[in-house]
């Protein structure tokens, strides 16, 4: 064999490295065009009823780890053995979606999208229209959740996680203060009075109110805002409404809570927040059902309050049309360029429109919006946080029945919610009147919303 000189070896190696680099830079091979692939906005035919074993293919889902959709994926694979469900480990999947969209390849089949982003991305024309499959089950899905996936008369995702807020509270701590119990028809001013007494006598708070007005504290504004019939924007998302009479009244209620000085002033999910809960310094809070999963992970002994909580409708605000609000909650979406929309829709249908799928996701801890499951199996959902014998699922259903169908989570909702911390603290401290502060807040959101909508065109 002819010996290879060092120069020759380096030359070949250099050529190889350069060729590899060039190959890496070349655009990836375009996926073969799928004749079934719809154009953006085109409505697909309703999937034909599928019998076990007919479906096959691979589904890739992006979402946070330890996900209810992962559990649904396992159940789906069991039912359809020729289907492979994968959820790669990834952190910021929303940013990865943007990168894949820009690259024109690499999108997953489905992602777990926040309600605000559903409406935003429907405007961008990037989501798969799933009107056919949702329409088929419209009567079986919670109406308030349906509206979150609706844009211009079409459904752009399968409604996922229903999130009505309740008041969660600890009877043992309230009674220790010599007040209570908190009755179902308690009025807001009575609740604040009780909060003051509980704080004075036990040093425990009956609500959360961080001075930076972030996290769970925002509910002291968001709950009355929703309850009074408020909306951050109108149905089209064009007009910002948060600084109207309802917004100012809701802010007045938030300020009343602040003025009691009885709220828990700790960053949401921060160590001091969990510390306060475990040391029995939090006697109550407004909270959506999905918080139960997080509480159960942290509150693990009776000394920390395990099995000592109750939930019920939020206090009555004068002039309210509802006794809850929505916070968080996501929707299962796919993309208009997805090459296998029938398989995706079949998965969505299985996950949130059948007893089997609802049971799996419900067991994980979210509240799927499938009414037949909510009416039957939901009551058997496992939990360790609430008092044994307390009909906590009944209270969630009561709150669900209070949800409004005219509350819109357009892109402006996200801007407005994200800016609460910038504008509200000055109003709470009285450095700005509520009228001036809300006007400033509204003008900011109006300006940012207009620019966002312009950029989405």
């Amino acid at each position, binding site marked *: 064999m002819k010996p290879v000189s060092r*120069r020759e070896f*380096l*030359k070949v190696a*250099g*050529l190889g*490295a*350069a060729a590899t*680099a*060039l190959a890496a*830079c070349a655009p990836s091979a375009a996926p073969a065009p799928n004749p079934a692939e719809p154009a953006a906005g085109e409505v697909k035919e309703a999937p034909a009823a599928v019998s076990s074993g007919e479906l096959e293919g691979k589904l890739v889902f992006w979402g946070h780890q330890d996900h209810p959709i992962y559990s649904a994926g396992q159940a789906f694979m069991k039912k359809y053995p020729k289907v492979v469900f994968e959820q790669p480990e990834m952190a910021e999947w929303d*940013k990865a979606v*943007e*990168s894949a*969209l*820009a690259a*024109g390849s690499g999108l997953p089949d489905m992602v777990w999208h926040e309600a605000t982003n559903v409406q*935003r991305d429907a405007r*961008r*024309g*990037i989501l798969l229209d799933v009107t056919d499959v949702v329409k088929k089950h419209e009567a079986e899905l919670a109406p308030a959740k349906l509206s979150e996936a609706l844009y211009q008369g079409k459904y752009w995702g399968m409604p996922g996680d229903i999130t009505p807020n309740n008041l969660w509270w600890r009877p043992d701590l309230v009674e220790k203060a010599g007040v209570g119990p908190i009755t179902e028809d308690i009025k807001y001013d009575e609740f604040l009075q009780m909060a003051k007494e509980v704080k004075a006598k036990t040093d425990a708070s009956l609500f959360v109110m961080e*001075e*930076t007005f*972030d996290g769970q504290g925002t509910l002291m504004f968001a709950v009355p805002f929703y309850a009074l019939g408020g909306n951050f924007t109108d149905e089209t998302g064009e007009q910002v409404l948060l600084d109207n009479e309802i917004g100012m009244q809701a802010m007045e209620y938030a300020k009343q809570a602040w003025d009691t000085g009885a709220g828990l*002033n*700790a*960053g949401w999910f*921060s*160590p*001091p927040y969990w*510390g*306060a809960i475990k040391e029995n310094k939090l006697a109550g809070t407004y909270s959506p059902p999905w918080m139960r999963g997080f509480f159960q992970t942290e509150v693990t002994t009776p000394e920390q309050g395990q099995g000592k909580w109750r939930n019920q409708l939020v206090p009555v605000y004068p002039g309210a049309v509802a006794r809850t609000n929505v916070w968080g909650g996501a929707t299962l979406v796919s993309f208009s*360029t997805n090459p296998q929309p029938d398989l995706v829709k079949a998965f969505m249908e299985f996950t949130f429109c059948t007893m089997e799928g609802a049971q799996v996701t419900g067991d994980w801890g979210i509240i799927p919006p499938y009414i037949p499951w909510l009416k039957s199996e939901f009551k058997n959902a496992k939990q360790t946080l609430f008092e044994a014998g307390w009909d906590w699922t009944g209270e969630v259903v009561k709150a669900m029945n209070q949800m409004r169908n005219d509350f819109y989570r357009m892109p402006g909702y*996200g*801007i407005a919610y994200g800016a609460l*911390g*910038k*504008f509200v*603290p*000055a109003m709470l401290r009285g450095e700005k009147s509520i009228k001036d502060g809300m006007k400033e807040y509204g003008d*900011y959101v109006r*300006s*940012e919303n207009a*620019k*966002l909508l*312009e*950029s*989405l*065109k």
Partner: protein
Amino acid sequence: MAAKAPPLPVSRSSVGAHRRPDARSVLREMWKHRTDYLFISPFYILFAVFGIYPLLFGIQLSLSRWQPGRDMTWVGLQNYQTLIFTDPELGRALLNTLAMLLWILPTGLGGALILAVMLNARRLAGRGFFRTIFFLPFVTSQVIVAIVFQQLLDKNYGWVNLLLGKIGLGPVPWLTETIPAQISITLLLHWMGIGTNVLIFLGALQSIDRELYEAAEIDGATSTQQFFNVTFPLIRPVMLFMVITATIGLINLYAPVKLLTNGGPEGTTLTLFMRMIDLMTSVRYGEGAGFGFIMGGIVLLITLLQMKFLSGWWTVEGNLKQ
């Protein structure tokens, strides 16, 4: 293949004496040295893909309206106009960033210089130990550091206020009121940055010829006089380098502030970089790209001003003349 000698440098006079080489001869020359070019090509390919292309794409993006998956719509300077005249956060973020620059830069560099001088002292015991201690923050994750600071400085449950409470002070709203929040950020940045700054100053101090100090001592100079007349003039080039790099670093400040105060309270610690990220994550890509170039312009302007006013600091000769 026989080894080829690299082309000899061409002197200015020889360029004038010959015809400018045409494209064919340049290509022929390149082909002749193709092996050499091949070996240096990976850098240029990577630089073109990850440096030049994003820059050009960014410029195009800043002059367009675009959403991923769609064609770009040319809007000219509209994004810049929107940002400069109507963005509610640009002015605030710029003022916050400049204010931080004004107090963090002198205190940070001054503090690091003092520590470096102390560590440079011949008689200091445990110099190696202290150098390691000062450098440790640099190798610690910014995220971890910010989270630890957040817990230490929590108004109601933080250790700092707990200790202040023991001596009858506080509680200080370290993260929730403007001035204390800015002080907290300053402390965090100093803690994180002091290690590298000390290390660079130490290198500069150790490169000074001992004979200069001996000569100064013979002339009867005190330690203070030696510092101001020997040490300081000789480390000015390093100081200038650090002023410029620290300025660029502070204008691009993001992670520590994001984690510690998230721009609060009420936007008083919002930085330019945070605003740019806000725009990008709210899918306003054209404005986000434009914001990036505005930031680049600000960095360039400040750096040019620094170089103009501190031009005498560049060379040791220049410093010794002063």
